[in-house]
């Protein structure tokens, strides 16, 4: 169900380029509140112009990490460098960073215009220039005609834009966004995702976004750090995270996944064979896995990579093939979700696009079906 990344490859991937120096460097940062460790020995490098997402559930430490970048929390251990400067002891009002708050934190006693101008006024920018830059910023977020309004006179979506304008008007090199779309309804959220990406590309600002919504992270970001219990579980592009999860947690957190436990019976340089009682078949993978023969591993298969058919597909050799009975069908319009109970008792989730009209649906409840998938669909998780 997860949306594939839609970002255009507009730039090189700076994290692949050893000549690049990271813009934000987080080195072995730990933050403890009493006995509770919110962020545990996290190291990260984020490059100029990136749209970087910190993704995790509540209590994963993503917001604490963001607040340390903004200067509202001090790391218990470790260092944070922004543009090569050690941020230790630098208060929030002297950092080259701006933040957009989850609650938007618009000043209720000031008009939209005054809210946006607030940051510039603190820097002593001349009045004329403030007026120009505020007007320009409000035009950019299409709120020019609301300049004189107070925040409570705006809708949720408009408030979100004011918050964005206010955090961007000082032209920060780095913008921190805490659940920027969390308070919007679904439709507005999808539309705003694209606007945010376009704005970020247009202004060339480095964005670090905290979100709990995996779809949001996948759509917008250049790279994602998946966090769990204060630790970074995996860092990678949306494709890497989705297609090559390194751990069970990441595989299950991003999208839905079927897990088969199995034992490695053959481990060659060009292929691996895993015997899985749960799947009721051998799982064949067309590349080597560095793991001891006989080891127990988990194999993840995404629901959309599994094909359903009533007859065994031609050329099937029994590997990567399971049999079962359709127990549930959920029709979502574009796709349908099938819950198939295998002969081994395990329930497998399969999503298939609805290429034909529903009335001509070839597979229905209680049909006996074959589930097949390609060797590349198997992802071996050793952790």
């Amino acid at each position, binding site marked *: 169900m997860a949306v594939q990344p839609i970002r255009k490859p507009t730039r090189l991937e700076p994290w692949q380029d050893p000549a690049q120096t990271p813009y934000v460097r987080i080195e072995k940062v730990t933050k403890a509140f009493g006995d509770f460790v919110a962020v545990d020995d996290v190291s990260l490098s984020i490059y100029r112009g990136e749209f970087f997402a910190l993704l995790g559930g509540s209590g994963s430490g993503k917001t604490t990490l963001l607040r340390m970048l903004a200067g509202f929390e001090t790391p218990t251990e470790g260092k944070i460098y922004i543009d090569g400067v050690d941020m230790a002891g630098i208060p929030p009002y002297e950092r080259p960073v701006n933040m957009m708050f989850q609650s938007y934190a618009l000043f209720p006693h000031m008009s939209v215009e005054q809210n946006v101008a607030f940051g510039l006024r603190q820097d002593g920018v001349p009045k004329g220039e403030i007026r120009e830059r505020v007007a320009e910023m409000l035009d950019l977020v299409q709120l020019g005609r609301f300049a004189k309004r107070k925040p409570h006179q705006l*809708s949720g979506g408009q408030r979100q834009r004011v918050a964005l304008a*206010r955090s961007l008007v000082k032209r920060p090199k780095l913008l921190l966004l805490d659940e920027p779309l969390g308070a919007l309804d679904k439709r507005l959220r999808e539309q705003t995702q694209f606007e945010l990406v376009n704005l970020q590309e247009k202004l060339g600002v480095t964005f670090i976004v905290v979100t709990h919504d995996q779809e949001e992270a996948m759509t917008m970001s250049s790279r994602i750090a998946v966090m769990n219990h204060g630790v970074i579980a995996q860092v990678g592009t949306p494709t890497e995270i989705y297609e090559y999860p390194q751990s069970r947690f990441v595989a299950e957190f991003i999208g839905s996944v079927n897990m088969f436990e199995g034992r490695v019976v053959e481990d060659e340089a060009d292929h691996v064979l895993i015997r899985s009682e749960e799947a009721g078949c051998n799982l064949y993978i067309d590349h080597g896995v560095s793991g001891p023969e006989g080891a127990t591993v988990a194999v993840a298969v995404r629901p959309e990579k599994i094909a359903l058919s009533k007859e065994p597909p031609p050329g099937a050799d029994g590997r990567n093939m399971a049999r079962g009975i359709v127990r549930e069908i959920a029709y979502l319009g574009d796709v349908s979700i099938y819950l198939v109970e295998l002969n081994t008792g395990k329930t497998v989730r399969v999503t298939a696009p609805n290429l034909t009209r529903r009335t001509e649906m070839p597979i229905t409840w209680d049909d006996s079906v074959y589930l097949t998938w390609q060797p590349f669909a198997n992802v071996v998780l050793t952790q």
Partner: protein
Amino acid sequence: MKRLGFLAWALWFGYAFLYVPIALLVVYSFNESRLVTVWGGFSTKWYAELFNNDQLLSAAGLSLQVAAMTATASVVLGTIAGLALARFGRFRGRTLFGGMITAPLVMPEVITGLSLLLLFVALEQLTGWPDGRGITTITIAHTTFTMAYVAVIVQSRLVSMDESLEEAAMDLGARPAKVFFVITLPLIAPAIVSGWLLAFTLSLDDVVVASFVSGPGSTTLPMVIFSSVKFGISPQINALATLMMLVVSTGIFIASLVMARQHRQKQRDEQMAVQETVPRPLR
């Protein structure tokens, strides 16, 4: 039906319990007779006499002056205390500080008054200040217990206020002192105003503490009333009380009118904001 009858009865009894004494007081302020409890016909002569009674008027003036100074001082101190409790996290001795702030709320007034009197006497012997007791000592004494109320009001307002507003201001480059004056203060202004009014009322009302720490020539209005009761109350007091009630209820009436208007305005604004986001149907 029976239940409704009982509720209505309870309601009217409650109203009567609260307001009949006040109504009686107002009625008897227009009494011709010198005896407060005997009706002798309608007259406004006590109002005329009241305005010629210098002792009573100067006591009222002193009370108002003390109340205004007390309210102002306790708003400053109470706000600082409330800020420390709500915003400075878990500093060392916070629990003790919180307890000590609220202690004057439950302390018997007799003890507060007596201990302050002892303090002022000791201070005068040691340093020569305060030179006798009077308006200064009453104001200081009133401030000690009224600031506790202000601190509690300000603290609860700060706790319910979104802290990210202050963080956002800091993030945009405002230093902590600036954040306080430009963001925090305007937002807690309603709490400060109600704290001021409460402190004013408490000070105006107090007779116990004031009797301990006042000196000759500095008699507050409640003290005058209280002592005059011993010699038989004069209807002038009724007249004075009626006037004070008139002022207070006018103030409350205007305040609630303004608040109701603001509330309606806010609702209209929110309505407008919502309507604008709904796309117009195509024709």
